[in-house]
């Protein structure tokens, strides 16, 4: 497995895809923090926590990063080159998933530095109660987990769908259309879908119907595992070129 992991990390380092998504992440974090502080006028603990909880929006970017990375293997037909060396496609997919998860955590860490560097001075000027140490820990751990798990889940979705356009479009439609509709129809059901759970892990939720941090992490891990199992089953039966 370490060979698969190292190969995937080398592949990630040697194209501009990861860099492009990291730049997109920086811009998103800048926008998220600056708009949140400057126009949101955060005074409560909940508002201030939300400013630093960048894992929620960033996890979506990294989920798409995972989808794009996994589907690129089929788009550029590099998946066969790997399978000719390691015939177990499930092993390749798991290695890819772990590699993207690690990169997701690294990107999340970098974005946290950006968010804290900008957000903390701005929040210090705001009135109201100050954030406690546990709030910072929660923002850091939640953001890193959301970023890592989001990227891993994206790889699973990419392996499952294989077609890049369909996978990216489908993921965006699910996150921004289907998931909110499900939550609106039944929040008790919707909170178990990965869009809502990612929000809960990343630091925000949907009002009083979000999962607590621990259960939300468990839900994302469960989604990732289910998607990987289904994707692995589908991929092992798929003819590749």
């Amino acid at each position, binding site marked *: 497995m370490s*060979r*698969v992991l*190292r*190969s995937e990390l*080398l*592949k990630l380092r*040697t*194209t*501009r*895809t990861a860099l492009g998504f990291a730049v997109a992440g920086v811009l998103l974090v800048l926008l998220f923090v600056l708009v949140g502080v400057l126009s949101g006028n955060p005074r409560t603990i909940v508002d201030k926590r939300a400013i630093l909880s960048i894992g929620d929006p960033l996890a979506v970017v990294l989920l798409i990063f995972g989808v794009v990375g996994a589907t*690129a293997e089929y788009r*550029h*037909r*590099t998946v*066969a*080159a*790997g*399978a*000719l*060396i*390691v*015939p*177990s496609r499930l092993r390749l997919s798991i290695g890819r998933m772990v590699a993207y998860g690690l990169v997701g955590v690294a990107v999340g860490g970098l974005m946290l530095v950006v968010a804290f560097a900008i957000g903390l001075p701005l929040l210090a000027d705001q009135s109201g109660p100050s954030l406690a140490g546990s709030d910072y820990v929660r923002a850091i751990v939640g953001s890193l987990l959301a970023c890592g798990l989001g990227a891993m889940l994206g790889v699973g979705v990419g392996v499952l769908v294989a077609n890049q356009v369909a996978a990216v479009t489908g993921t965006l439609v699910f996150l921004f259309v289907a998931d909110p509709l499900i939550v609106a129809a039944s929040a008790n059901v919707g909170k178990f879908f990965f869009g809502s759970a990612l929000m809960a892990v990343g630091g925000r939720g949907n009002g009083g119907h979000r999962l607590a941090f621990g259960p939300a992490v468990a839900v994302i891990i469960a989604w990732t595992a289910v998607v990987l199992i289904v994707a692995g089953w589908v991929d092992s*039966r798929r*003819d*590749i*070129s």
Partner: protein
Amino acid sequence: MPGDTQDSAIRVAGLTKRYGGVAAVDDLSFEVRAGAVTGFLGPNGAGKTTTLRILLGLARPTAGEAKIFDQPFAALADPVRTVGASLEISGFHPGRSGRNHLRSLAVLAGLPFSRVEEVLGLVELTGAADRRAGKYSMGMRQRLALASTLLGDPRVLVLDEPANGLDPQGIRWLRDFLRAIAAEGRTVLISSHVLSEVAQTVDDVIVIHHGRLVDEGPVDRLSGPQRVSVRSPRLADLAAAIERGGAEVSRSGDDVLIVSGLDAAQIGDLAFAAELPLHELAPHAASLEEVFLELTSDDLTPEAPEAPA
């Protein structure tokens, strides 16, 4: 190759692959001798790539089996050192350099980066190794694909249409390259839809058409029995005399007969006995290309589909 003690390196038995109701490969069976260079021939859509993909574990057969050294590809203990394969020249990320593409495969295979430099040198791509692969010419892409097949120094090479898109210089380079590889005693299975591309390199040929085996054996045998062209002002009388002698006769133009089943001396004796004048008596073997085209002559019928990309 040292260590190749088995007679057959590749064995395909009763292989069938259906897409919907159409058979891309239809009950195909053949063997590839260890240490031989074998041409896997057939027109476009004959089922060559589908067969190779099944052999390499990239596609699942509907029926039958394809094995390398008596094992399915997925069961090989050390696939990268056993088989090197190139099925798609576009099997690389266009934004990644050739060197990094090979390095990612080397890491996956547990090989040192020095091996990457070796294979880059073998395919004469060192100078362009740091350029993005998407900027490579067709010939450079073929060389990169060949480099990836050689990474593990494998005993068997499977190459799918490696001459596709190459200019005459590239084809000549490929021919020299394959000769050098063959001289090392490796087993090579090379597919092509153009016999002349591989005729000077291969020992054996396997010809398929519409997913079925048409012919297989040493390439020399493919040239078929000797035929004799005969020119005479009394062609009809001569044809009748030759047919009475037990040979097959066909016309080529207005005044030439093509005779198979008798040699030139026997035909001359027959003509002399029948008191028929001869203006030409020329033995010739059909060219490989002629035989190949004859074997795969019904190309106007719908082709069996290759596997979807």
